[in-house]
């Protein structure tokens, strides 16, 4: 295992799916934020974060994810998450992310609901 985070993006019209692989910490969170803000500047208003290959998130990563959610909400868009490990799912619920972003079990379920 390594600590480096990798991000991949699948653009779908005015939406996009952002795939993460690795640790969402300060460095990883900033990488996600930069890519998410680029997408927002490019008109994306529905962003799904697929965390299937992420097993660890720390508190700084969470605060960055909250900033991304708020920024998207300011622009009238929405952010959702899918494919979380049970530990990360619980973490998001406790830290309040689940109040502002919907969490889906699978990418298929999210894509159907978000029309991606």
């Amino acid at each position, binding site marked *: 295992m390594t*600590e480096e985070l990798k991000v991949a993006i699948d653009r779908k019209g005015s939406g996009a799916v952002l795939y993460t692989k690795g640790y969402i*910490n*300060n460095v990883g969170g900033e990488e996600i934020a930069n890519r998410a803000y680029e997408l927002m500047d490019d008109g994306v208003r529905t962003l799904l974060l697929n965390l299937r290959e992420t097993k660890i998130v*720390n*508190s700084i990563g969470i605060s960055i994810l909250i900033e991304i959610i708020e920024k998207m909400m300011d622009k009238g868009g929405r952010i959702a998450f899918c494919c979380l490990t049970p530990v990360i799912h619980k973490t998001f619920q*406790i830290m*309040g992310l689940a109040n502002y972003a919907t969490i889906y079990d699978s990418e298929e379920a999210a894509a159907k609901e978000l029309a991606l």
Partner: protein
Amino acid sequence: MPPLVRRFSDFFRDLEQLERTAARTEAVLEVFARHTPFPRGALYLRDRDARLRLAAKSRQFIAPEILDDEPPAELIASPDRVIVPLRSGRDPVGVLALAAAGVYEEQDLDLLRAGAVFLSTVIANQRLTQEAREGDFQLKYRLWELETLYDIGLSIAGTLNIEELADEILFRMISLINARRAALFLREGGRFKVYRSFGDVRSDFLDDELTTQLLEAGRPISFEAGADCIFPACTTFVAVPIRGDNEVIGVLAAADRETRDGGIGVFDENELRLLSLFANQVAIALENARLHRDALEKQAMERELELAATIQRDILPKSVPSLEEMEIAALARPARQVGGDYHAFFERENGATLLVADVSGKSMPAALLVSALHAAVQLLVGEGRPLGEVATELNRHIHSWSAENKFITLIMAAIDREAETLEYVNAGHNPGYLLNDGRVDTLKSHGLPIGMLAQSKYMTQIRPFPSGSTVVLYSDGITEAENEAGEEFGNERLEPLLDGRASPAELRDRIGAAVDAFTGSAPQKDDQTLVIARSGSGRMRNQP
């Protein structure tokens, strides 16, 4: 609307926008530049350390990063610039330093004073909102820490697979203390070996000096790392011992605690306390996993023993053959841990061939070797070859087939009723006994055990075996049977029992009972085998 009122109105409308949009600090200067004759300047805001730190400045406006002077109580005006304090109540929140574009009037300064009051309120509100959000975040974060510790007691302790457990431990620890890298070390002798790591480690073992420190301290150790840190190029380091029931069973180590401003900080007291609590939970989880693994290994071993016992049961003769003028009796008592005793009977012209063997080792490996011996013996003896040739061929076959340290002690005896002879081969086995006319002769070993040396050759030995003679073959499980004091039954207790007048069945029962009486309640450690035959006349037939 009078121009002055309109000017105030426009200025405040723009300032209000700042509050609504939680604006960038540069926007503050833009609003002041738009509505006052001060187009350039700098905005300083009080930071967490109560210092006035530059938040925004106009292009080409020279301003230091930190303002050392305390903000003035009132606006200070000079012909080319003004210093405007920003206060919320009595608390200074910042300073505006603005450069004049030209001559300005008193009403411009009034506009600045009013704007500063409004801006101060906006900044104070934003700060309060931010602090409330951070407080909320911290509260939730503390709750999450508690939940994590609680979860470790449940979900981790429920993870009995040590591989999965190691990942779970690392992931949760990294999250809990905001570390960038971490490793789990488990005890291996007197050292601690890396079992799982997140990020590279420079060595498989924890540094000896650090190990000593941890064992002595018994609690977390944290320091700013140097070049010898186990994580390459790490800045800060922490390690905590995992204390099992009797000793430290492992170590959790982590490096580079992330801070909110994007830097790396030392692991603070709160994190060390959390790590200690975490290590306590991990100790329980690891002990549970270890016990579970031991139970699984025991289960697997029992399954293997059961299978080996089945193999051996299927191979050994199901019944004792009966010959009209030859009596044969046998005893086979397998030990709980399957050993490697084997015996067989073969019909031959004018008599029978008897065999007792003991394969080295226990359990499945021994059972497999017994199986190989059985197949080879059935083939070779069945061909009617002389016993010496059988043993030589058997030796060659077993040596090439079995593992290096596997061998078989074996005694074969062929009775020829008509010739009244007994041919035998003893390859490293206990001496057999020949009972005739009140005399007890031994059939001693005259060669190495089967399978020990590829070149071994065995010669058939021959003895007179007149009608009424008895041959007794046995395994070392008889003579080496131990009593509770650890004493062996021995040949000295066996030989007085060898009365040639008794039938083979009587001898078998007598020896079996004597061994039982000697061993008492001591556990049987090895297979016990006895094969006894007395000559007579007639053909061999199997009884059910």
